[in-house]
Every structure is written in structure tokens, then in C-alpha cells.
């Protein structure tokens, strides 16, 4: 049952081949059996899930069901859930239970989806390996000695191991796409403002965007459809109707022009990854896509720009965790200053502290112009590169997602810069606010890798269609890690 697509699961429910309760129980059983070794869930909400499943079954029986009604999912533990702890991978929020739901939680609940639990992640979504989580690292189902990528490591590991059919995730600099590539999944980060950020714990507000990791473009499209839309509670959400992401998936992609940025194909990519990406280009060419080399000249500046903007916003967003109203509070502080220092010192892990310090520094008096303001100007140039390409007849852009396949635990832990370079291909889309996705394109020494598509604002439907057509012509995305296949 765990290998079925969302459409197949929905058909099974509709045709009463199984109930949502049975489906939910099957997944809960898998979590019980397998997650001890993977650590993808930080909280399993069995009771809540079964209640939702029963409600979904009632809706199905009453003929009041949508496509997603009764389908289980995992929620990244960055989305607030009423009555269920939302820890965001941090000791700071180890005991935090929000009195509100994130808008996307509300929307997916309303669609009738069944939340199996909350998924592990890097602390406050800061990391590319899921090694910074207070709840411990997550293993890559394809090789448990390797990382699943990050920050949505729990989301991808759970879907890749069949511990949920689909999962929500967030992407600030690649946190959906890079882990999707490392675990043979399809992950999409939509246009900034397409999915509400309300109730999603902020890392870097101008870059954060929620999305989906799934086992196919079709599954991703179906869930993203339900998550998307304007939300009056998020001032940066865009008031614009949501395109139909699902019904256009059968369209031909013949004659589309996809740009290949020469900067993305320069040195830096592992040879095996390069070979797989080039094969994907060949496949798409056979499907009638035209490829053209383009230039995104400012893309080498993405990483340094990002590591000014994101920490700056993070240092500000995380100022609220002061031990006063909620979250971790140090015991026995003698003064207000001591309360702040110790609560934050104890509650935040090393990577979060490092980014708060970088962010505080770049916003400080006398450094603001040199760092933050300068980074904002470069950000504009990076955006202009994309704008020029799309104005020049480019429908989508294709490149690698990650430089290499999943690395071993601890490999980059002592070298933050090496870790930061994991995001080299993914960051630009966040800085520009454009949608981007990663999808599987084969294996290197048995480990999965993926390629990335980027599109103009609100071109999710086109992007997903290209991905779907590619997946109709290939079977990489249908491969399972042996241990979890049956």
C-alpha cells in the first residue's frame, strides 16, 4: 500500500478497497517498525491521525470527499499545530505547543488529509544535512550512514522510506530541493508568496517558502494545489488565483525552450552527478524540448549574498526566543541579562548561534551598508539575471540541484563553509523569489541524484508538467531503497 501514488490511494479509498483508518494504521505501523533507525519523526500523532482518518472515512462515505481526503501526510515540525508540540528542531521549543494552526495545516486538514506526525529537521531550518536537530540526525534511507540533506531531512527520509506518502517542507536556500535530490524524491518550492507563511516558524522571512516533497511530480502538484493561495494573515502572500496545477499535467512539452546556465555547469559538480544531469537533458531533448545555453552572470554571488541576508533576518526573527513568554527558560537566573544569555545559550544549538552572530554583525552600526545593504543590491542583480533570461524567450531553466550525492555523517560538520556550499545551485531561486523544483535523474554508485528546474514567477504548472512528462519517460522516481521497498 505504501508504494501507491496519491491518485491510486484516493481511488482505493473511493472504491472502498481500504479505509483511511486502515491506511493510517498501515503507515503508523511502518513508522513503528522503521523509524527507530531513520529518526524522521519527532512526534507521531497516532490518536489525532486516527480521528482525522475516521472523519475522512465519514466524508468519503457521505460523498463529500476531495482527492486528498483520507490521504496521510507528514508535517515538517516548522508548521505550528494546535495542541501538538512544534519544536522546529530546537531545544528552545522542546515544550512549545502553539494555540494556533499554520494556514497550510488548516488547509490540508480542511482537505481531509491525515497528519501522521511532525517531521524532524535542522534546528530552525538552518542546515543542509539534518545534523543540527536537537532531536538527533536523520538517516538517509538509501544509506543509513549518510545524511538525507537538510533542512527538510525528516520530510524526505519519511517519504523515501514509505513512512508517509507525501510531506510538507520548507525551502529558504534549498531545504526542499537538496534533500529531495539526495533521497530520490520530487520536491517543489513554489513562488515566494504563493503559500502562506502564517504559522510557519520564520528563519529568513524574505526567503522562506513552504512546499512539498513527494514521490512524483503528480503527487507534489496535488498537495501543492491544496496548500497554495492568498492568505490575508500573511502580508507577503500574493493575491492572485491559484493556477490549476494538476489538470495540465498531460500537456506536451514539445517546443519548450529550457535555458542551461553556463555558470551552473562549470566546475564544482561531481562527475557522476554531471553525467546524470546531462542524461536528463538528453531525455528531455527527445521529448521535444529545445535547450539553449544562457548566462546568469551574478549567480556565483548567490552564496555570499545569501549568507548575509538569511542570517540577518534570522538574527532578528529569533530575537523573540528570550525565555520570557514561552520556550526554554534558564533556571535560577539572577538578572534579566543572565536570563536572556543563559536561556538563549542553552536553548539554541551551535549552528543557530553562529548564524545569529553573523546576522547581528552584518546589521550592526557601521557594517550595515557594507554587508546587508550591499547584499540586497546583489540580490537585485541576481533577480535581474533571471528576469533577463525569461524575457529572452526562456521558458524554464535547468541545472543540477546538489553538487554531489548524499555525504556521510560528520563529513562537513567542522567546516561551515563547505556545508554552506551545498546550497550553491539552489539559493538563487530563493533570492529571486522564483519557483524551483528538484526531481530524480538516476543514481551514482547506488545513491540518488536529481536535477533542478527553475521558472518564472507563478510558473509552477509549467514546471510540474515538464517534470511529469519527464517522469512518464523515466523510472528513476519509482525506485525504492531496498530495505523499504516491500
Amino acid at each position: 500500500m505504501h508504494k501507491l501514488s496519491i491518485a491510486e490511494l484516493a481511488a482505493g479509498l473511493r472504491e472502498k478497497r481500504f479505509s483511511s483508518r486502515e491506511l493510517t494504521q498501515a503507515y503508523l505501523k511502518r513508522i513503528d517498525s522503521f523509524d527507530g533507525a531513520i529518526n524522521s519523526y519527532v512526534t507521531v500523532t497516532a490518536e489525532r491521525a486516527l480521528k482525522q482518518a475516521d472523519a475522512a472515512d465519514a466524508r468519503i462515505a457521505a460523498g463529500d470527499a476531495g482527492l486528498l481526503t483520507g490521504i496521510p501526510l507528514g508535517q515538517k515540525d516548522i508548521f505550528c499545530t494546535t495542541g501538538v508540540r512544534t519544536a522546529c528542531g530546537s531545544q528552545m521549543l522542546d515544550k512549545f505547543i502553539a494555540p494556533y494552526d499554520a494556514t497550510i495545516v488548516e488547509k490540508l486538514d480542511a482537505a481531509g488529509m491525515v497528519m501522521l506526525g511532525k517531521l524532524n529537521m535542522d534546528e530552525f531550518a538552518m542546515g543542509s544535512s539534518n545534523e543540527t536537530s536537537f532531536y538527533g540526525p536523520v538517516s538517509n534511507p538509501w544509506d543509513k550512514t549518510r545524511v538525507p540533506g537538510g533542512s527538510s531531512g525528516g520530510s524526505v527520509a519519511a517519504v523515501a522510506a514509505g513512512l508517509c506518502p507525501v510531506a510538507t517542507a520548507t525551502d529558504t536556500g534549498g531545504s526542499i530541493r537538496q534533500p529531495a535530490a539526495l533521497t530520490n524524491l520530487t520536491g517543489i518550492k513554489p513562488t515566494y508568496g504563493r503559500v502562506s507563511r502564517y504559522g510557519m516558524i520564520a528563519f529568513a522571512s524574505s526567503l522562506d517558502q513552504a512546499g512539498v516533497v513527494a514521490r512524483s511530480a503528480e503527487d507534489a502538484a496535488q498537495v501543492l494545489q491544496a496548500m497554495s493561495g492568498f492568505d490575508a494573515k500573511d502580508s507577503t502572500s500574493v493575491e492572485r488565483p491559484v493556477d490549476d496545477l494538476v489538470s495540465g499535467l498531460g500537456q506536451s512539452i514539445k517546443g519548450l525552450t529550457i535555458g542551461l546556465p553556463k555558470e551552473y555547469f562549470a566546475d564544482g559538480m561531481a562527475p557522476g552527478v554531471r553525467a546524470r544531469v546531462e542524461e536528463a537533458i538528453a531525455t528531455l531533448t527527445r521529448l521535444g524540448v529545445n535547450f539553449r545555453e544562457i548566462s546568469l552572470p551574478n549567480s556565483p554571488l548567490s552564496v555570499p549574498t545569501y549568507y548575509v541576508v538569511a542570517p540577518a533576518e534570522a538574527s532578528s526573527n529569533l530575537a523573540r526566543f528570550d525565555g520570557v513568554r514561552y520556550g526554554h527558560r534558564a533556571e535560577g537566573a539572577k538578572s534579566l541579562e543572565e536570563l536572556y544569555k543563559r536561556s538563549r545559550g542553552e536553548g539554541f544549538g551551535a549552528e543557530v548561534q553562529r548564524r545569529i552572530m553573523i546576522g547581528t554583525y552584518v546589521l550592526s552600526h557601521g557594517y550595515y551598508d557594507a554587508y546587508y545593504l550591499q547584499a540586497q543590491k546583489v540580490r537585485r542583480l541576481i533577480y535581474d539575471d533571471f528576469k533577463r533570461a525569461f524575457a529572452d524567450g526562456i521558458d524554464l531553466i535547468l541545472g543540477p540541484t546538489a553538487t554531489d550525492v548524499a555525504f556521510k555523517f560528520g563529513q562537513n560538520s567542522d567546516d561551515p563553509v563547505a556545508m554552506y556550499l551545498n546550497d550553491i545551485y539552489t539559493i538563487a531561486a530563493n533570492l529571486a523569489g522564483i519557483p524551483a523544483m528538484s526531481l530524480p535523474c538516476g543514481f551514482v554508485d547506488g545513491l540518488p541524484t536529481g536535477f533542478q528546474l527553475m521558472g518564472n514567477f507563478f510558473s509552477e504548472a509549467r514546471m510540474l508538467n515538464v517534470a511529469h512528462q519527464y517522469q512518464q519517460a523515466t523510472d528513476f522516481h519509482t525506485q525504492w531503497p531496498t530495505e523499504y521497498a516491500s
Partner: protein
Amino acid sequence: MSRIPEGWEAVIGLEVHCQLSTQSKIFSGSAIAYGAEPNTQASPIDLGMPGMLPVLNVDAVKKAVTFGLSVGAKIAPRSVFARKHYFYPDLPKGYQISQYELPIVFEGHLDIELEDGASKRIGITRAHLEEDAGKSVHEGFQKSSGIDLNRAGTPLIEIVSEPDIRTAAEAVAYLKKLHQIVVYLGICDGNMQEGSFRCDANVSVRKVGAPKFGTRTETKNVNSFRYVEKAIEYEIERQIEVIEAGGTIRQETRLFNPDTGETRAMRSKEDANDYRYFPDPDLLPVVCTPEYIDAIRGSLPELPDAKRARFEKDFGLSDYDAKTLTSSRELAAYYEAVVAASGAEAKLCANWVATDLLGALNKLSKDITESPISADALAGMLKRIADKTISGKLAKDVFEAMLNGEGSADDIIKAKGLVQITDESAIIAAIDDVIARNPQQVADYRSGKDKLFGFFVGQAMKATQGKANPDALNRLLKERLAG
């Protein structure tokens, strides 16, 4: 008021925090009523809980623009919210959402009236929108403090003046004028005790003619006009003393103590926070189109200066009366309603409203909106003066009775039989009776003691229970006394 010593000059700039009287907070739907139980008006947004996002209250923007247009300021077509960071328990997010580089209102001015009647223009550098912080509560706690976040997120405009003010008296005149305007506009309730209108004073001194400003101090939260005056006077005196004794002024924040009338150092510039301002990525820039600004301009109420000029011109009032009657929008409206409803002479109406009514309200510690006599009721009485039913003197009694809630002027006149006697034969009869009963005084009067005339008026009035028409009484009394 103490004087600035010869050869010295003070330079003063004021920052006023004015709470906007919107229904809800600037970035959340919570109510902003004063005095609610602690933390009952604090939503997850106000508490700065994880994942919560601000949504701008457009009414706060409208009120800020209304203010800007009323002080001749420019309205930014695009203004930007920025985060101002510091840690404090009453600041839930660890930053205050404010405006920094691009405020919504800039380059305005206010004309104040000096004691000698001259006018002086004080520049307004800017007015920006921001959220208020909460409050720390120390009473009722042992070894700890409470935090009340009801006030957190209340919309404010911070109005920053140019350093154009030279004396404490000018500072007070500026503040009073500003206060009057924001209350007139209905954008602030002006309640200084509840903190709706708060002032920080930047003060420095220098020798007259010195090219540069001296080092300034900022005195925080001086919450009455009198305290502002005292705090500034104290600060000027203190700074001059320090400099004359060979010392230097430290740039610092000071606190005013109303009990001693002194200010004391709170923190120096070295201890000041680096606020690390940057544009708030959760909020879009505030865009004010010319159409939007024009629509607000079109709905601005008449401001005090314009109203005062109109009262002088249209009603022929003295400058003093016009100023008094326009001191609040409600009072001016009351006065205009009295004039319109009574048809009586505008000057007469002004006397009754500005002198009798305000005097009575003052004794009752009430303001015009709480007046026991409505404008219509007062107009009813003025009608009876105008048509000579009652004299001005009788009117005082009617007015008293109205204050006591004894009914309308007509009811009271009828009930007390206060209708003026205009029948001359009745008046003559009374006069003749007085003359007959006071032969000695008549003789004295006729031999040149003119002052006794008042005595006869009084006696005759008494005889008519005060109801005689005073003009007729005077004329007839003169005739009869002449013999």
C-alpha cells in the same frame, strides 16, 4: 517661570508619541481599550509567538496621513516599516516595528503663539508609524515582575520636531498646539495620564551666537505639560551650571522625577543599544497614492487656527473669545449650535458660553461634552433674552435653575413667574412706592448725591421681584426722581 541667564541659549527638540485611536492594534486584530485586565488584549501576534505575522491596520495609516496633512507635511508615496532591535521583557518580538529611513510623514510645521502674541514656526522633521511596547508590572509581585502586553502593538505616531524651540514656554506652547490638533482630528484621545500623548525632550544649551549646538540630553516620558516645562527648565539650568563650572555635558538619557522636579541620568550614549534597523521583510512598503492622499485631504476637519479666524470674522468675536471657543472641537460645535438655534446675537452667545457655561462646568469639573445644559437648551434661554421675555439679570437665575436640571428655560420662566415686567404703569407704581418710603434718600439725591441712583434701582427691582425691564426701570426712575 525661571529665565535663561543672559548670554545663554537653549536648543530644544521634542519627540511626541501619540497613540492613534484605532479600533484595533496596528498589526493585529486585538482591541486597544485602556485599563483591561492584563494580557486579555494580547493575541498570539502581540505576544510575538513563533510563526505569527503582522498585518497592517489601514486605519492607522489613514490617521497618520490625516495628521501629516494637518501640519502641512509631505506624505511619502512609499514608506517602509523597519525593525528596531533591543531586548526587553515588554517587547515580545525582541524588536519594535517602526519606520526608520522612510517615514510616512515628513517636513511639516506648526505655528505656535508666544506669550507676547507673536507667532513662531516650529518645524516637524517627521512623523512615523510604529507599535507601542507592553508594560512591566512590579506591584503585587515578589522577587519577580509581571508583563502586561495589552498595550503591545497599539499604534503610535512618533512626531519629531526640529530643534527650533528655545524656551520651556515655547515647548509647552508647541505641545499644547500639537495636542489640540491630534484631538481635533480625532486621531488620538489625548489622554496624557493614560499615556496616549507622551513627550521626550531633547535639550542642549550654548552661548548665544555659538555656531554649533551643544551636547544634548534626552529626558524621557514627561507626561504632563507642567512636567515638560519643569523638566526642561531644570535641564537648562543644570547644563548651564555644569558648563559654567568648567564641566561638560554627557550625551545621555535622563528621567524626570515629578516629586523633586529634577532629572537624573538613566543611561549614557555608550550604553545605548545598537538597534540594527533593517526593513521588515514581513511587511510590504506602505504606498499612498495621490488619490488616496487627496481623499483624506478632502475629509479633513476645520483646524483650530482656521476656526478661530472664522469665528472672529463671521461672529465678530474678540480674539480672546474666539480662541477660548475654539479650544476644543466639541466646544466650538456647541457654540455654533447655540448661535444657530437661538438666533441671538453671536457676541451674547459667546459671553454665555465662554463665561457662564464654562465657569459653571469648571466648578463641576466637567467638560463641554458632559454639560448638563445642552446647546439647544441654552439657545432656548438666549431666545428669551433676545425677545426681551427675560432680562440678562433674570437669565442668571434661569441659567442656575437649568444647571440644576429644573427643565427648559421656558418651563423655568413660567414656573417661577420670571417674565419680565414691561408694563410701564406697573413699574411706575413700584417706583412711586419706593420714592414715598424713602423721603430722606430722595432729598439727598435731589441735592446732588447721584450715587444714590443705584439704591433706587435696587429697591425698585426688589419691589418687582427683579422682573422689571431694566431699561424701562432706569428711564422711568430718572423721570420720577427728577420730580
